C-alpha cells in the first residue's frame, strides 16, 4: 500500500501508522458522558469510503486524513490533518 503524503510525495506503507476514524470530534470538557464514551470507545466499521488518520512517523511526522475505501483499499485522497490553519499559515509565510 502507498500513501501520497502532501509533504513528502508517494511513500510506502511502513512509513505510516494507522490510527482510525478521522471524522470524530473531541467533545467539550463539559459534554455529556455519553458523547465522551462515543468519542473514546465507539467506532463505526464502515464498508466503503472512510476518512481515517494516518501518521507519517518515518517521514514528516504529519498526521494525515486519508479518504480510503475499506472494501477496495483504494485511496481517494490524502491531506494533512491540520491543513486548514497550517497551510494557510505556511502559504502566508511563503507569500
Amino acid at each position, binding site marked *: 500500500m502507498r500513501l501520497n503524503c502532501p509533504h513528502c510525495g508517494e511513500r510506502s506503507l511502513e512509513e505510516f501508522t494507522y490510527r482510525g476514524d478521522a471524522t470524530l470530534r*473531541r467533545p467539550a470538557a463539559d459534554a455529556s458522558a455519553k458523547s465522551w464514551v462515543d468519542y473514546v470507545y465507539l467506532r463505526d466499521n464502515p464498508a466503503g469510503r472512510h476518512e481515517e488518520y494516518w*501518521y507519517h512517523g518515518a517521514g514528516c511526522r504529519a498526521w494525515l486524513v486519508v479518504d480510503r475505501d475499506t472494501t477496495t483499499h483504494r485511496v481517494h485522497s490524502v491531506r494533512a490533518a491540520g491543513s486548514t490553519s497550517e497551510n494557510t499559515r505556511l502559504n502566508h509565510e511563503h507569500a
Partner: protein
Amino acid sequence: MNTHKFMQDHAPLPMTSPTQPMRMIQGNGVDVGKTIHFTFDGRSYTAHPGDTLASALLANGVRLVGRSFKYHRPRGILSAGPEEPNALVELRTGARREPNTRATVAELFDGLTASSQNRWPTLAFDALGINGALSPVFTAGFYYKTFMWPASFWEKIYEPIIRRAAGLGRAAEEADPDCYEKSNGFCDVLIVGSGPAGLAAALAAATSGARVILCEQDSLPGGRLRAENILIDHQPGWNWAEATINRLRAMPNVRIMTRSCVFARYDGGTYGVFERVSDHLATPQPDQPRQRLWRIVARQCIVATGGIERPIVFPNNDRPGIMLAGAVRTYVNRFGVVPGRRAVVYTNNDDGLRSATDLHAAGVQIVAIVDSRPSSAHAQAIAQRTGAPLFPSARIADTSGYRGVTAALIRDSEGKDCRIACDLIAVSGGWNPDIALTTHHGKRPSYNDEIAAFIPTSDEEDMHVSGVAAGTMTTSGALTEGALAGHQAAACCGFGKASSPPPAVPSVDQDESYGIVPQWHAMDAESGRRAGRAFIDFQNDVTAKDTKLAAQEGFRSVEHLKRYTTLGMATDQGKTANVNGLAFLAEVNGQSIPQTGTTLTRPPTQPVTLGTLAGPHRGLHFKPHRLPPTHQWATEQGAVFTANGLWQRAQWYPRVGETTWQDTVNREVNTVRSAVGFCDVTTLGKIDIQGPDAANFLERVYVNAWQKLPIGRARYGLMLREDGFAFDDGTTARLGENHYVMTTTTANAGPVMQHLEFCHQCLWPDMDVQFISVTDEWAQIAVAGPRSRDVLRQIVDPQYDLSNESFGYMAAATITVCGGQPARLFRLSFSGELAYELAVPAHYGDALARLLMRVGAPYGITPYGTEALGVMRIEKGHPAGPELNGQTTAHDLGMGRMLSTKKDFIGRTMATRAALTDPGRPTLIGLRPLVAGTTLDAGAHLLPKGSPATAAFDQGWISSSAWSPTVGSWIALGFLSNGPARHGEIIAVHNPLADTVTEAEIVSPVFVDPEGKRLHA
C-alpha cells in the same frame, strides 16, 4: 507441420551419452558441451548445465523420485514447472539442507546432492507403503474422524505415528549460513512472465519509452516457447524469445529479472517478488545473497503468466511415468530428454496431441493416442503421421506397474478394454490460466465454457492480463494481446497514445487449435469399487472417492471441501488439482462448475522461504540496536548490558572482588547514597517544544498546571490517555519565554512524540507550537549523591553558581562546561539524593563520562547502571514502567490530587469517572516483609492475611521489588485496594508460581528520606 524446419530444430545429439540414456536430441535450454555431476539418493549421475534436477533424473532414466504423503505410493515427476505436486526432494546437506524442493524447478549445479524424502528404509522398498492397504483409515477427514478418542492419545500416540507416516522432508538443524536481502524496484510497467504475451508486451511498452521491469520465474526467458515446436518469424520460437530478450536488455529503460517469481499483488501497485539469486550455485559468491525479496512498485502491471496444465482423473493415474502432456514436450524440446520409449498420449484437446508429434520426432514410439473426443481429421492426421493407433471417444480405465507405469488399460468408445504396454502416459486435461495474481484483490474469476477453465474478471485499471492467462490459447493471439496490453499500459503512464495502433507482432507459422471438450475424469460405474484409486490431488493423496465421500457427508461448499479433504493445500496449493476437484464436486452435487464456485488464492503464489521474508533482519539486526553515547566507555569499564526497548544500557558495573551482581548493585547504591555516582540517562525521550502557545499546549497534555512555571525551572508532569488512564510521566523544563524541553520515559519516547503531534495537528491546529525530538542530540548523564555538586563544580564553568540558593531543586539552565562548551543542567533527582542531570551534545557524551570518572575520583565516584537506578527509585516510591502499565490511573498512582480542575486536558473527563477514582481500586503502597531477608516477588498477589489464596480474595499485586541496601530489607511497590488507608496492616503475599505465601507490612511507598531533605540539600 513443416518437417524440414522441425528437423533443423531438433538435430539428433552427435553421440548419446551412455550415462544419460534418455537424452535423445539437442534441447534448446541445455549445454550438452559440458557435463556436470550430481547424486540422487547416493548414486552418481551426469547432467548438463541448464538441466533441472527433474530433467536430469529423467535423462538418466530415473522415474521413481518420491513417496506420496499419506499412502507412500511411488511417485515420479508430473510436471516441468513450479506446479509440481509429486517430485519433492531434499537438496544439499548440513546447514544448507532444504526439504520439499520441487525437482522441476531446482536448477542443477555440479556437485548437487539430492535425496528423496518420505520413504523408509529406501525409496524402492518403502515399509510404510502398507499405508495404502490401510487406506480406509486415511480417507477424507481422517484427521477429524479416526483419532477422535481418547483425547489423551492424540499427543502421545496418534500424532507421532501420523507425523512419521505422513510427512515431508527434514529442515536443516544448523543455522542458515547464507544471507538474504531486500530490495525495492520502481517502474511504469511491470510484466509478469516472458512467454509470447509477456515479451510482446515488454517490447511494446519499452519502445514507447516506459520504464519496464520484466520478471520471469524461470532461469531462461521464453515461457512455453521453449517447450513447443513453433516458428515465429520463420525461426524457432525460443530463438525469437532470446533475440527479443537481447533487444530488450539493450534498452536502458528495461530491466530483465530472471529466476524472479512475482508472488503477490498488494495494494497501490505494490508487488512482492522472490528472486532466487544463487540457488543455482553450490554456494553463493562472497557478498552475494542466497535469495532476495523485492518490493516492486509499478504504475501498471501486465499479467502474462500463461497456464498450468491439469491431468485427467483416472484409476491409478499417479504412477511414475504418467505425466502432463505439456511437461513431456518441455522435457523433449527444452532439455532433449524423452521421459519414455513407448508412449500413450491421453488428451481431451488438440494441444495434447502435440506431444505425440514431438515425442515421435524425438524417436519415441507412440503406442496409442487416446482422445476422449469423437474422431477428428486433426487427430487422425497426427495418428497417421506418428504411426499410432487412435482411440477416439475413449479413456484410460486403469494402469499397471508398481514403481513405474508398464501398461495402460484403454476402454474404447464401445466399452471394450485393450491393454497396451507403455512406459509413459502423456495426459492433458486442458489448461488452466494461471490467474493467481489477478485474484489477490478479491476478484473472483469466472468460468469460461469454451476453454473449460476459469479466466480473470478483474477490471482494475492498473492491471492487464494477456495470453493464456487471459484464456487466449494460441501463440499468435498471445502475441497480439501482449503487444496491445504493453501499448495500453505504457499509454496509461503517459508514453504514447492509447488510441494509436499497437506495434505489429511477428507472424506465427502454424495453425494452432485447442478444441477442448472437457473430460474431467475417466470414472464410470464399472470403475467403481474394484478399480484403483484415482487421484485428484497428488500432493495430499486426495482421491475421487474422498471428494465424493466429503460431498456425501455434507461438505458441499468448495471451501469446506478443501478443508475437509485437504485438497489444494501444501506446497503446490493444488495448482494441478483444484479445478479437477471442483469439477468432481460439481458432478457429485449435480451442479455446474460456476454454481460450485472456486476458492480464491492469497499470496504467495509459490512457496517463498522464511529466510527471504526475514531478509537481513535476524540476530543482532532483528530490530534496531541503539547504543547510548557512553556505550564504548561502559564496555571498557566491563559493564553488563541489558536491553531497554531498543536501547542497550549498562545494567551494572562489576568491580574486582564482587562475586555476585547483588554485591555490585549494593555497592553502586551505597556509593550514590553516601558519596556520588553517575548514570547515562540519554535514553529518556527528549522533546524540544517551542512557540508562543507552548505553555498552553503543556496545560492540555499534562494533568497539572504549567502556566506559572518560571523560566529556569522544571516540573514533574503526568500525562493521561484520553480514556483517563496514565500514559507517561517525566519532567519538563522551561528554558526560555517560549521554549521548553520535555523528557519522557525511555519506552514512550516515540509514542509521546506521536501523541503531541496528534494533539497539535488534529485537535488544536490553531495553536502556535512546534515539536522536535532531540533524544539523539543530547547525551544526558545523571550525577547523583551528596557530593554531586562538588563533582560538577569541577566541570561547570565558574560563572554558574551551583549553590542551593541560586540553583535549587528543580532548577534548569543553559550553561557552559569545560571552558565554553554548551550544555544544559537540570537539578532533577530520580534517586532522591542531591542530583543533577547534565546534558551535552551527544558526541561529547563519551568524553563527559571519562571526565566525570577523573574529576569524581577524589569524591569516590562510581558509575551506576539501570539496576541501581531501579533500586533507588523503588526506595523513593517513584513509578516507572511496571507502575505505568496502561491499567493504572493517576489516583492509583497516588497522584489523584495533581489533576487540575481549572482546565481541560487530555483524559480529564474520563478520569473523573467514579469507577476510576474509587478508593477500593488498587492504589500505590509500599511493602516490607516481616523478616528482612524474605524475598518479595514482582507479580505476586496481595491477599488479606489468613484468607485462601483464590481470586475471590485477591486485593492487589506487587509491581516492583528490590533488595534495598539503604533500608536493609527487601522492599516492594504494589497496588492494593484501599491501600493508603491500610499502612501498618500485615498482609499475605502469594506467589502462585513458587506456591509460596509470606507476610508483609503495608507501608508508605517512600522508603528513604520521606521528607525530601537529601534532594533539597
